[in-house]
């Protein structure tokens, strides 16, 4: 045997008592004294270190590096932006894998490619041959860098400590960064091979590797060997070259599309030209599509596929074992073993790993393509046929900070045991609704920023007759462009709508208002649909082009679902043909304040993308949006960009104390009427186009996309209530808006003084809106919000801009508008801040004190409440029988 290669951490592994094995010509630790099971579990609940320095690190540079990589890899290299990585495959002409790899763009002028250790020489020789026809070079820099995978829920905290508090990478998977760790230069990738939602791979100069390893051990990480790396990746369903890629047990090559993550790594963009393997991969892709449509008539191009498999009987499945369905041999295990997992306690988002563990025999199977999820098969385990089931997945990795094992269970028939005593159910419903009403209205302090309580007048109007009526109307040119109503009995509601439009025009300071949309989200989809229709108005005989580029607030930076491709933009945002991603670009945020848009960086992006549509507004909002500055820049650049401000959260703050969107240059404002505004739950759209402008046509399109595009009947009861809310707002807005902003700033100050970690800029008293954000510890948000609810304080748990998503929420989002309306001033908010701090920091029970505080503030403010109004409302209530 030739001399085994050693990584720069070889001695460190020996010192730690590792058992070493030959792995692809490298002398590597397979496990440490604690053993594979313990290393696996430690990764899942804490953090493990893996020496992956044996992997091949290559640099591709030179003018034709993109062209070269587009030719020899399956992925779309153009989709990579600076500080992003992508999974890719080095394909052969048959559509099989020479290797699977990861491509990193740490620097604009070169690509960093990491390949499997055992394949490095083979890959490099192959790529060096192929690169001859391109004006670029590839070189092996494996010796200059060490790689340490830092994987597990605590990994982020540990690396952040070494980074001195600097953000390690953006929270998204595949994000990259180059930073110093206690003075040592490191390239960090938010990637990994364990399935951990939180995991990093750190590239560090060889001479610093030992330092980093030991520092992370000091911080509580433990070393893990190749054994645990294999069980972890198996549980995550990730392929291993030589098992799931390469050749199968019969010696036949495994097609790339047979591997679930394989297809994700393949692009067919025209940008890639006729790259190696393309023709074969296109056939595989077509075959996969047929298979997924359950058409198994022609499996030539994809006879078998890799699927997760779980053993039902007692035993352990191993790579190479044959699998049968009945008498038919349908494939083989490609990987298999027994893996440990934590049992969970609790339910839903606050459920956590318990201390209890169990084990399960799982694997990956390469089986006939007509085998489906939930099929029961038999695995030949050394002559014994044991039952196994094809499962969808072994683990979910989308709820950071913890991976969630998915354990196969037979679905049991639900026993039909429905109590059909509907009279009793009806009475129970009344009782429960009454209790809920009393609790929310009398005992709770509600700090959800997207909620408010409407005045008695608004509530009564919403409950009166129009809530059972129908109206539809549309302007008709045949009748002098007057609204034509399609239902009788609607003269009153017609007047109401005209008065509401007039009140909202005055409030927003614009020329036209649409009030028929029944939610803020619908307001947005009506506008998006109208913009798309307007864009395509000259040719409706072809498929309409979608919108792009669109600039918006990213959901992780506080953007709302109503302006995300996964939300309301879903059907309207185009795909960029170059990157094959959504033609959506997010506002960059300030380095020192992720809650605030960075105007100068935004201008650079506007210059680069020339967005046709900019959407301001978000749901986690502490700052004014820079509408005026961006309007000015867009005009200077002579761009035809439409600027919309989605004021869902801040609609009730339009004015001198916050922002005047149209005066600042917005074309369109949308909003929901029940957050800071006083209304029932509806939406509104305003525009500032005048009748003689070309873009008035866009306004008319918006009207058509509201009706008949979005609603037929537009919920007349709440429209009636909304008119009263608009009267109230236009009358009381000065006092109300001033109080809301002052209360929010004061509340933030009190929370800070009470010892809580308040987000935002202290120089502006943390907030310019009704919202206050408080950090309560990474991923602690759901539990703390639940605790506050048990103490009669209702808040949202919230992911901050540094966090991965709602399951990792480390903050609370609170709004002061509803309590301000109930008369809360500085004294009340100071008391409330103290109670919240006591509950959050000291876990003290404060429910009774909260109820007592709430009971002193039950009279609605900022509405008509003199004797005359009271008398009118009493009379109205009597007439409508409420």
């Amino acid at each position: 045997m030739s001399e085994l290669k050693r990584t720069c951490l070889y001695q460190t592994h020996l010192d730690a008592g590792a058992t070493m094995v030959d792995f692809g010509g490298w002398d590597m630790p397979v496990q440490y004294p604690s053993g594979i099971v313990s290393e696996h579990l430690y990764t899942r609940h804490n953090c493990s270190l893996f020496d992956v320095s044996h992997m091949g690190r290559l640099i591709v540079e030179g003018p034709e590096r993109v062209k070269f990589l587009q030719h020899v890899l399956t992925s779309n290299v153009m989709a990579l932006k600076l500080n992003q990585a992508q999974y890719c495959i080095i394909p052969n002409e048959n559509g099989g894998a020479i290797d699977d790899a990861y491509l990193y763009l740490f620097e604009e002028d070169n690509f960093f490619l990491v390949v499997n250790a055992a394949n490095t020489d083979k890959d490099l020789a192959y790529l060096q041959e192929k690169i001859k026809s391109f004006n670029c070079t590839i070189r092996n820099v494996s010796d200059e860098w060490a790689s340490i995978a830092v994987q597990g829920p605590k990994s982020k905290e540990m690396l952040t400590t070494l980074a001195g508090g600097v953000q390690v990478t953006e929270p998204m998977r595949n994000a990259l960064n180059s930073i110093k760790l206690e003075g040592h230069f490191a390239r960090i990738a938010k990637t990994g091979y364990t399935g951990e939602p939180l995991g990093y791979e750190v590239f560090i100069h060889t001479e610093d590797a030992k330092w980093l390893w030991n520092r992370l051990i000091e911080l509580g990480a433990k070393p893990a060997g190749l054994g645990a790396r294999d069980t972890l990746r198996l549980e995550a369903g990730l392929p291993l070259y030589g098992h799931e890629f390469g050749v199968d047990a019969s010696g036949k090559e495994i097609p790339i599309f047979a591997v679930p993550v394989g297809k994700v790594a393949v692009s067919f963009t025209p940008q890639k030209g006729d790259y190696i393997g393309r023709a074969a991969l296109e056939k595989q892709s077509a075959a996969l599509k047929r298979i997924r449509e359950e058409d198994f008539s022609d499996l030539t191009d994809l006879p078998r596929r890799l699927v997760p498999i779980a053993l039902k009987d007692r035993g352990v499945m191993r790579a190479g074992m044959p699998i049968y369905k009945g008498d038919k041999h349908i494939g083989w295990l490609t990987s298999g073993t027994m893996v440990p997992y934590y049992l969970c306690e609790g339910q839903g988002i606050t459920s956590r790993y318990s201390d209890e563990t169990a084990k399960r025999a799982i694997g990956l199977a390469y089986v006939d393509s007509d085998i489906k999820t939930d099929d029961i098969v038999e695995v030949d385990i050394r002559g014994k046929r044991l039952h196994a089931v094809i499962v969808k997945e072994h683990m979910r990795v989308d709820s950071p900070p913890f991976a969630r094992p998915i354990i196969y269970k037979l679905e049991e028939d639900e026993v039909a045991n429905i109590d059909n005593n509907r009279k009793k159910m009806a009475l129970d419903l009344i009782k429960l609704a009454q209790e809920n009403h009393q609790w929310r209205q009398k005992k709770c302090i509600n700090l959800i920023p997207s909620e408010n309580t409407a005045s008695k007048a608004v509530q009564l109007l919403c409950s009166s007759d129009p809530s059972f009526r129908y109206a539809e109307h549309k302007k008709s040119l045949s009748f002098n462009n007057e609204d034509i109503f399609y239902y009788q009995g609607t003269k009153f509601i017609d007047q109401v709508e005209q008065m509401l439009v007039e009140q909202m025009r005055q409030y927003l300071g614009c020329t036209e208002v649409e009030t028929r949309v029944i939610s803020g989200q619908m307001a947005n989809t009506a506008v998006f649909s109208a913009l798309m229709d307007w864009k395509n108005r000259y040719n409706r005989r072809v498929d309409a082009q979608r919108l792009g580029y669109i600039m918006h607030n990213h959901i992780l930076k506080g953007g709302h679902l109503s302006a995300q491709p996964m939300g309301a933009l879903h059907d309207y945002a185009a795909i960029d043909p170059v990157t094959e991603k959504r033609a959506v670009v997010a506002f960059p945020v300030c380095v020192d304040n992720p809650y605030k848009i960075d105007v100068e960086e935004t201008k650079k992006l506007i210059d680069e993308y020339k967005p046709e549509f900019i959407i301001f507004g978000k749901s986690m909002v502490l700052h004014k949006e820079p509408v005026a500055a961006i309007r000015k820049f867009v005009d200077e650049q002579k761009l035809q960009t439409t600027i919309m401000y989605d004021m869902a959260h801040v609609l009730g703050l339009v004015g001198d104390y916050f922002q005047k969107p149209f005066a600042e240059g917005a074309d369109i404002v949308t909003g929901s009427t029940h957050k800071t505004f006083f209304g029932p739950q509806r939406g509104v759209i305003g525009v500032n186009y005048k009748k003689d402008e070309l873009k008035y046509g866009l306004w008319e399109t918006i009207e058509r996309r509201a009706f008949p595009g979005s609603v037929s009947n537009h919920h007349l009861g709440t429209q009636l209530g909304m008119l009263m809310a608009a009267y109230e707002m236009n009358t009381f807005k000065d006092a109300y808006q001033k109080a809301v902003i002052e209360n929010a700033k004061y509340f933030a100050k009190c929370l800070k003084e009470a010892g809580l970690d308040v987000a935002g800029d202290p120089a502006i008293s943390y907030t310019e809106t009704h919202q206050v954000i408080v950090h309560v510890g990474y991923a602690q948000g759901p539990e703390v919000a639940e605790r506050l609810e048990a103490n009669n304080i209702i808040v949202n748990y919230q992911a901050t801009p540094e966090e991965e998503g709602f399951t990792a929420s480390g903050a609370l989002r609170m709004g002061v508008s509803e309590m301000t309306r109930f008369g809360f001033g500085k004294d009340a908010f100071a008391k409330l801040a103290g109670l919240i701090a006591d509950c959050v920091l000291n876990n003290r029970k404060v429910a009774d004190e909260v109820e007592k505080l709430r009971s002193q503030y039950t009279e609605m403010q900022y509405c008509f409440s003199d004797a005359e109004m009271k008398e009118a409302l009493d009379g109205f209530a009597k007439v409508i029988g409420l």
Partner: protein
Amino acid sequence: MNYPNELKYTKSHEWIKEENGIAIVGISDYAQDALGDVVFVNLPAVDDEVTAGQAFGDVESVKAVSDLISPVSGVVSEINEELLDAPEKLNKDPYGAWIIKVKDVSGKEELLDAAAYKEFCAQEAK
């Protein structure tokens, strides 16, 4: 590594203790250490015949499966059912966690005493 003197050992790393005509069989400390985390044990059934030098079951660690070789020929009189749910007992207490008991013992493998077995393991580890 522990090699209790009262036991005899095989070169395939099982231990054996004979009491009143019954042979009690397990795996040695050296064996469990080499296997790593034991995650599953395949046991024979009571009344199965076992043959000296041949496999009577297997023991699976995370990484691999190893046959259990019977040191004696005879009939299985008892199996340690505890190991089905808690195979890790073989790691934690290899000499307490017996695997099978054999009656009607008729033939035997070559057995080593503790000192010889220790020497054998030392050679194998090299």
